[in-house]
């Protein structure tokens, strides 16, 4: 258990800035997921916390102690690497027990602890094997065991599941969360996979290009994305984002002239904005009898329970979730209903979220609106 405080931490390689003045407070026992696209500086952040990378500016404190100048081993962090980084010339048991051996733990106790951890992870039968003789999932477990055995204050995970197949990934995801709950250490988990982030995190830190875009619980991130980037990154399919211009207090006009009603805005008419709406928040219907909003359908992805209908709307690519039956038979157009409360508004220039009166109520709204015909 340890809280971690990151203050104005930056990292640059020569003139290239990789992480910029980053602030983050992690509570003891929390499960934090750092989510962001590849190359945004997630691993760098994690490695700075671990002590594998020097920080260029700022302070990192673990449990109130500033660790900027401490060696990795003095920080009490354990890390699971993306490629597992198992010692290829050591058996599974020696891999897991190496930290204890270095720490001078007596052999009998060492073996006992290896045995306990191996049992937790279902590795007992594999203790004498070399890493080369293990499957991907087993290697992943050994890497976890090696991290667990020291009972560290902080667990760091660098995309530990990205080398596993889809099924194993889901299974290990659940195990990692269970393990976290049981060990009650502080965990920081880096991933580019939003599903992992949503399912694992107490709080998600969304990063982009070396900067924090948003910090919040999975539901906060989902319902109130703080920026256009977060809105587009979190969600499957990604949120529809359309360029528009403010017309009145409660209406914007899309690029092609389509008017959209919005929650009350305090913006000057003519201001460029970006409106966002999730595929599942759009009401869809079959009838195209009024001159309302119409999606020109391109193609349909059937998912069984529902379908993703892709098409063009307001001069943009647009996707909606429709009941499977409605999408059947490849309709040419669908009637759309966009409720003002379901809309997200972003500043066209900065990409930041524009506060609307609906934001306060947003969290109370059910995650999925029942589509009505």
């Amino acid at each position, binding site marked *: 258990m340890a809280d971690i405080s990151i203050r104005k931490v930056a990292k640059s390689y020569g003139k290239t800035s990789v992480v910029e003045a980053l602030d983050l407070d992690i509570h003891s026992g929390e499960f934090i997921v750092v989510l962001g696209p590849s190359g945004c500086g997630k691993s760098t952040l994690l490695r700075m916390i671990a002590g594998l990378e020097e920080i260029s500016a700022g302070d990192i404190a673990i449990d109130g102690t500033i660790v900027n100048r401490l060696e990795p081993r003095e920080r009490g962090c354990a890390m699971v*690497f993306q*490629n597992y980084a198992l*010692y*290829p010339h050591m058996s599974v048991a020696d891999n897991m027990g190496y930290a204890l051996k270095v720490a001078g733990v007596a052999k009998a106790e060492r073996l006992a602890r290896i045995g306990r951890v191996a049992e937790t992870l279902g590795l007992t039968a594999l203790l004498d094997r070399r890493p080369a003789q293990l499957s991907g999932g087993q290697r992943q477990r050994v890497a976890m065991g090696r991290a667990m055995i020291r009972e560290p204050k902080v667990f760091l995970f660098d995309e530990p599941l990205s080398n596993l197949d889809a099924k194993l990934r889901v299974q290990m995801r659940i195990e990692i969360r269970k393990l976290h709950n049981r060990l009650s250490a502080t965990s920081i988990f880096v991933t580019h996979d939003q599903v992992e982030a949503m399912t694992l995190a107490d709080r998600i830190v969304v990063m982009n290009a070396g900067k924090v875009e948003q910090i919040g619980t999975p539901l906060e991130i989902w319902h109130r994305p703080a920026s256009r980037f977060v809105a587009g990154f979190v969600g499957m399919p990604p949120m529809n984002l359309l360029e528009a211009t403010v017309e009145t207090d409660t209406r914007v006009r899309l690029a092609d002239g389509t008017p959209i009603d919005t929650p009350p805005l305090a913006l000057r008419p003519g201001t460029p904005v970006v409106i966002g709406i999730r595929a599942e928040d759009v009401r869809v219907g079959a009838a195209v009898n009024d001159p309302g909003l119409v999606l020109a359908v391109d193609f349909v992805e059937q998912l069984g329970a529902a379908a993703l209908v892709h098409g063009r709307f307001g001069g943009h690519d647009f996707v909606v979730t429709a009941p499977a039956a409605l999408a059947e038979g490849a309709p040419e157009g669908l009637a759309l209903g966009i409720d003002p409360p379901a809309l997200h508004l972003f500043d066209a220039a900065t990409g930041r979220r524009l506060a609307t009166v609906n934001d306060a109520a947003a969290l109370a709204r059910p995650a999925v609106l029942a589509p009505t015909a």
Partner: protein
Amino acid sequence: MEKRATFGHWWIGIAFAIPQIILIFTFFYWPAGQAVYWSMTLQQPWGGGNIWVGLDNFRQILTDPLYWNSVVRSFVFALFSTLLAMGIGLVLAVFVDRELAGSKVYRVVMIWPYGIAAPALALAFRFMLAPEAGLLAFVNRLWPGLWDPGLDGTDAMIAVIVAFSWKYVGYNFVFFLSALQGIPKSLTEAAALDGAGWIRRLRDIQLPMLTPTVFFLLVIDITESFQDSFGIVDIMTSGGPARATELMVYKIYFDGFRGLDYSGAAAQSIILMILIVALTVLQFRFIERRVHYK
């Protein structure tokens, strides 16, 4: 499947290979064959016929204490020069790997000695290690007579070992450095998080993973110490004093071209050849089944 280059006529390919074949035949198979033939005959130094004696030459060599002296000297030389060259090469590589990962300049600078011809290098060392005027002269001023490779056999052996090792330190360094840099960084990082300091990481993680390189260099260094030592010995000590540095390769030359015992020298060179071929076979077998950690 990649399409191989094909030749319009069967003889074109052979024509391309002929210069190479001629070279190999002239400078390897023919002399080697001659040496085998000579080693089984008694050659007249002035020419004029030879007598077939079968394995008598070998029998004579292998019962000659002077020959066994050169064998022992050769192995002592091989052992210490290999240890020295590999040891220093490894230490330098470890430091460069830690401080200057990726520095190309070091590699180039360190490989230079390997490119220097052995006699030139030996000449330089002869001056440096000269007891009366060299760098070590001041040692002799403090302890008169402590260092004199011209009189003391051990000193002479140390001198040739140092000169030879100096040449091969760079060679070993380059291989060790690239092997060290080939070890995934995450392994040493994982060990660092496991609490190991850098010496411990070196011992527990990096060195075990260098085993293939160590074996490779061991064979190369020993093989080279049997062959490439000639120029150094010839210039620095001429095998002396009192045969203290008479290595196998030098004795072949000495018996053959100074002693004019062609047959004996030929037999000795066959023995050395077998030794080197054996080492090379060992190396090839080893490279094929290299200890791979994956």
